[in-house]
């Protein structure tokens, strides 16, 4: 009889079980420690997020909310006035700027007016005018847009070149708002928001004013607008916009004989013209040849 081996064989599994338990605890501890590291990282990220994004956003949010309220008020006011105001200018736009069908007689009269006005200020000659076929270019919200190429060559002095391009830029402009560049319009609107949200009611009629009527007698229109915006900041912004290159060019051209001629021959507003191709070449005598292919747009 040998009992000893029985004792030794019973201790080994217990020892193995203890070792397994210890090993499992260490593994569990390791896993939890990794999880803790990730949770600490999450804390750091949350604090960083608050400091770097949430606090600046929170500081900005009340201003944005205030601006939304002002704009909602302005939109509401504009909608109230839109129905009565927009009709007439939109009708003129559809009748003259983007007319229905071909309006060749009016375009050729326009070239005649250009010729007679610019002959005294640097236009030395004008070729025959070639008119191409009218074709559809695109469709916007169910309405088709047609274009008709018109080619002409001009012989002119250097100082007349900018005038010709400025006139072409004005072909298609109807109101004061149309001559302003998007950033100029944004400047006026932003200032109107800051000063008096309800002042948009006064700004709208100003922007909808016929450009030629405004340039003939600007003071009454400007005074009416500035009554609604008496602050210095709005006045400064307004003066900046009036001094912009596009407005100055329009004043120079339409405030002179061209404006008078367009009014007299009822050619204002001009049909929408865009340059398809311009060829500028200097001649040996220092004068210039300007070849233009224009696109006259219609509906």
């Amino acid at each position, binding site marked *: 009889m040998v009992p000893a081996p029985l004792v030794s064989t019973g201790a080994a599994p217990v020892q193995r079980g*203890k070792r397994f338990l*210890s*090993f499992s*605890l*260490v593994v569990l*501890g390791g896993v*939890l*420690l990794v*999880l*803790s590291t990730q*949770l600490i990282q999450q*804390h750091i990220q*949350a*604090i960083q997020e608050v400091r770097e994004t*949430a*606090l600046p*956003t*929170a500081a*900005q*949010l*009340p201003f*944005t*909310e205030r*601006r*939304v309220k002002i*704009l*909602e008020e*302005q*939109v509401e006011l504009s909608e109230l006035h*839109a129905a009565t105001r*927009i009709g007439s200018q*939109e009708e003129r*736009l*559809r009748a003259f*700027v983007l007319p229905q069908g071909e309006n060749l007689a009016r375009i050729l009269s326009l070239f005649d007016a250009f010729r007679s006005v610019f002959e005294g200020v640097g236009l030395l000659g004008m070729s025959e005018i070639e008119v191409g076929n009218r074709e559809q270019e695109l469709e*916007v*919200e169910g309405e088709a*847009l047609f274009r008709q190429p018109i080619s002409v060559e001009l012989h002119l002095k250097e100082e007349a070149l900018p005038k010709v*391009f400025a006139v072409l830029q004005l072909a*298609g402009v*109807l*109101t004061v*708002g*149309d001559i302003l*560049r998007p950033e100029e*319009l944004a400047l006026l*609107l932003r200032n109107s928001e800051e000063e008096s949200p309800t002042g948009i009611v006064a700004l*709208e009629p100003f922007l*909808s004013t016929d450009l030629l009527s405004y340039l003939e007698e600007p003071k009454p229109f400007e005074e009416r607008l500035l009554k609604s915006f008496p602050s210095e900041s709005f006045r400064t912004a307004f003066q900046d916009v009036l001094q912009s290159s596009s407005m100055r060019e329009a004043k120079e051209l339409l405030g002179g004989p061209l404006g008078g001629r367009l009014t007299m021959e009822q050619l204002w507003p001009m049909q*929408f013209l*865009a*340059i*398809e*191709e*311009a*060829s*500028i*070449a*200097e001649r040996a005598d220092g004068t210039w040849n300007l070849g233009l292919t224009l696109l006259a747009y219609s*509906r």
Partner: protein
Amino acid sequence: MILVSPLPPWAILQRIAVPFALFSSVLTVLLLASTLVVLPRFTRVEVNDTSYSALELQQRRAELEAHLADLERKRDQLVLATNIPLYRTVKERKNAAAPPLAVWSLLKDLAKSVVTQNDAVHLSSLRYRPQEQQVEASGDVRFCGPRSMTVLAEFVELLTKNERVTGLSRPQFIREVDSAIGPHSPFTLSFTLK
């Protein structure tokens, strides 16, 4: 003399297992509790009597900005009496293109900035299609003797480096002799404006 026999690794493991597991679990539980309860409470920001988390703030800002852009668009349409879609489309397209004289000035300015000789590049003509922003310019490099091709190469390099110029087709580099202007390098180059 006391002899200390080194502990086998499993014995060390056995001794540290329980404290290590306990420490890790307590730490995890505390951090989990902090993440779920403490952190959200202390990282909230109050704006106009409303409390927001960082994520909610971002969402609120994005929401407000989208609404603001929508209102601005609506107001801009209402404030302009001529804001009908067809007219707006052609007007935006016309205004987006650089005016022909601005293109001419760009070329003249680049010609003047040629270091070798700033009055040697002579531009004689320009063909420009505003809608496609395609430019074709011709001229010649003159009054700089046998260096005309070098000056032309510098002019072409200036055009290539200009941020508004893309797709430049290089001209042929030749030197010709004209009875009136002497040796000169005529060129025609075309490119698209960005």
